[in-house]
């Protein structure tokens, strides 16, 4: 247990606007099972991607089995025996189980023909290693298997390549209980054979079951490392969140009457969510990735269908069957991924800002160009959008300015309820402050805002109260006076002990 399998020394990596990792050193011994934990955006994925060669670090050294790798690439990393199982299984559903297991490493005949018999044999062997021989048919199309078994195939694929270092990135997110237990058995097996393991999970209880040590990242920096039997869940949570408090930007407002009331809405991802938003109120919605926050936002806005539930705007029931009706009911959605859902990137700032209101600024469907331009100019000025002109293509703006264009669009349509899904994502610090400012101003002018974020400090610095989601349910409603990072994270992570929030009754 003395030799290091992997050493990542003084790694730094930044993306435009974000320092993803700052001087991080990570060492993994042979046969060690190390948990890697941290909040969303703490830098876990970046660190893993540097090890697998998907990203090149700005600074730092990568040493694998005592050999320094000058330039890590996915191919080199694979040949060194590093393999990864990702939470969103990167497999080809149209190929068979066997084809997936040997993909990129097919046994050949005559140099280019695939040796089918050998392929099946290898697949059987790999499935046997994970205890699923005879349960999963190597000839079955992967897409036909239940998701949990697909997860097993991904694991079989990873361990079949003589892996010496296996990375599990949120592997249990898609696994059922039986598969999770199998996974733990497999991990113990691997450990016995001297394979080193990096285990990433938000489910702290799992970490205590199978890991030797736990390594905590926070905001791209190393916080601490502990042997698993010398720590506990509470300590880990406080390590994960314990950061300096940000400047307070909260302003006290007179909260008014209820504008939006959502009652018990359900669909595939939502298991009965209720909430209310009042005039001049900013309500945070916290939850880990996959907790259903985005789905809730989309369901309220009519972007995804709901099976059940009621929505009231200013006390009147409304039936929101599409975003168009939501907009008519003065709802606005700043979607999670502005490039994919929020903006028509090839169109101009002017076109994007006016998109929801063209029907109001046209006569017999001929657009009033003067109005169109003056509206665009007004909001460019008001939100301080940095753009050479209103006819500039949105694609050419920075992330922060793009986000402001999305917000401008909803200001232009005079919305009363704003649902903002990660509005500061990928936005630089200066623009972030401006977006908070803007939210404050909006609320002061009477709007109700539902602010979805994975980043607790920003929620705590601006929200009147914070809702916490977990597994498609709202599990907490924390007023400003009781806000506490550890409490919020605990609500979002920990298994419930039969406690039911006020909204669930």
């Amino acid at each position, binding site marked *: 247990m003395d030799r290091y399998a992997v050493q990542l020394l003084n790694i730094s990596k930044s993306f435009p606007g974000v320092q993803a990792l700052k001087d991080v050193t990570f060492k993994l011994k042979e046969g060690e099972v190390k948990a890697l934990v941290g909040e969303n955006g703490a830098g876990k994925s970046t660190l893993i991607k540097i090890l697998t060669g998907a990203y090149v670090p700005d600074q730092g050294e990568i040493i694998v089995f005592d050999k320094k790798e000058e330039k890590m690439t996915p191919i080199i990393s694979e040949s060194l025996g590093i393999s990864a199982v990702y939470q969103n299984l990167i497999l080809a559903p149209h190929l068979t189980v066997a084809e997936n297991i040997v993909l990129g490493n097919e046994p050949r005949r005559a140099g280019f023909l695939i040796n089918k018999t050998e392929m099946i044999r290898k697949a059987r062997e790999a499935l046997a290693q994970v205890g699923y021989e005879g349960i999963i048919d190597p000839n079955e199309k992967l897409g036909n298997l239940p998701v949990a078994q697909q997860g097993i195939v991904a694991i079989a694929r990873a361990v079949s390549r003589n892996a010496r270092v296996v990375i599990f990135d949120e592997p249990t997110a898609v696994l059922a209980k039986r598969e999770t237990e199998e996974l733990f058995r497999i991990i113990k097996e691997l450990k016995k054979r001297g394979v080193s393991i990096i285990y990433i999970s938000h489910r702290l209880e799992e970490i205590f079951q199978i890991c030797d040590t736990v390594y905590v990242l926070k905001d791209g920096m190393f916080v601490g490392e502990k042997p698993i039997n010398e720590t506990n869940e509470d300590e880990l949570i406080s390590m994960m969140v314990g950061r300096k408090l940000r400047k307070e930007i909260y302003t006290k407002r007179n909260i008014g009457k209820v504008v939006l009331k959502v009652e018990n809405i359900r669909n595939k991802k939502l298991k009965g969510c209720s909430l209310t938003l009042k005039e001049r109120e900013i309500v945070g919605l916290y939850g880990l990735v996959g907790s259903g926050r985005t789905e809730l936002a989309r369901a309220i806005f009519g972007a995804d269908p709901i099976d059940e539930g009621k929505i009231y705007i200013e006390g009147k029931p409304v039936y929101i069957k599409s*975003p168009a009706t939501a*907009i008519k009911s003065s709802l606005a959605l700043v979607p999670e991924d502005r490039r*994919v*859902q929020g*903006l028509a990137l*090839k169109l101009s700032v002017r*076109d994007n800002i006016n998109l929801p209101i063209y029907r109001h600024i046209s006569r017999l469907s001929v657009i009033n160009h003067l109005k169109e331009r003056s509206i665009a100019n007004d909001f460019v000025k008001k939100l301080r959008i940095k753009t050479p002109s209103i006819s*500039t293509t949105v694609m050419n703006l920075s992330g922060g300015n793009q986000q402001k264009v999305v917000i401008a669009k909803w200001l232009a349509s005079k919305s009363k309820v704003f649902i903002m899904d990660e509005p500061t994502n990928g936005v630089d610090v200066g623009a972030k402050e401006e977006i908070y400012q803007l939210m404050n101003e909006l609320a002061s002018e009477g709007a109700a805002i539902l602010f979805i974020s994975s980043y607790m400090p920003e929620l705590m610095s601006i929200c009147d109260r914070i809702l916490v989601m977990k597994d498609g349910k709202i599990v907490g409603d924390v007023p400003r006076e009781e806000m506490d990072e550890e409490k919020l994270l605990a609500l979002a992570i920990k298994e419930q002990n039969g406690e039911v929030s006020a909204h669930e009754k």
Partner: protein
Amino acid sequence: MKNNKTKRFSLNTQMVLLIIVVVLWVFLSISSSHFLTYENISNIMRQMAIQGILAVGEVVVIITAGIDLSVGSVVALVNIIMSKMVVSGTPIWITVITVLALATGIGLINGVVIYDLRVPAFIATLGMMTIARGATLLISNGSNVFGLPRSLATFASGNFLGIPNLFWFLLLTVVVIEFMLRNTTFGRYIYALGSNPEAARLSGVNLRAVTYGVYALAGFLWGLGGVLETSRLWMGVPTTGTGYELDAIAAAVLGGASLFGAEGNAIGAFFGALVMITIYNGAVLLNINPFWQRILVGIIVIVTVAIDQIRKRREV
């Protein structure tokens, strides 16, 4: 700064095309004494009219990141039905309204199949292309339809203010569609749909209505093309229109339309069609083997788009 760049770039797309046209025209004027004559120019205009209208229709579809392959078959279907109706004594105006409604309806069906049944536009309109061609052959029994009134032929060869009648239809189409694309809500929604359907939907754009509208409008223009084609041919020819879809797409793309959507306009399609007709016309005047024409057009399409792509990559 960036804005200047994009402006300069969009100028360039049309500029390249204009330069190609000018070079071709100068070259043809020198090498053939027939080229710059009133007859030949009128001839170019007549040839270009139908192809231009189809190119404008196609560009509207392409801006939504769609495609319509049913062009040529719908032209042929309209041609045959119109010929049959007129020959059997139906008044021309009733006939024209009927076939235009039919073509628009076919376009609407394309829209329904594409939006509601989620069939990719390429497949949906490929199917419609085959169906319309089959119907054409079925109705005509595979043979030409003769006996159309002379007035139709006179109309096709006639002029108004010295410009061929057919060309007026093209000019009208370009002006109307260009106006629609630039100044109407429908026009903006077309570009928004082509750039990002999800963003458009979340902004309250009714994607179903826009999709229906675009394919119905395209169908209407194929119908118009078919009516003009009937007057030009002065008979019903069940095999007419073969390959028109490719000419229309080529002209649209030459004119700056991007198959990825949100780029292109009617004027560009007009110039694209002009380049192609000039090549066809010049090849005839210069006695070049007609089979070479297609090869030339193919090369020009690929080269123009490649130049465009290279320039775009540099922009980014």
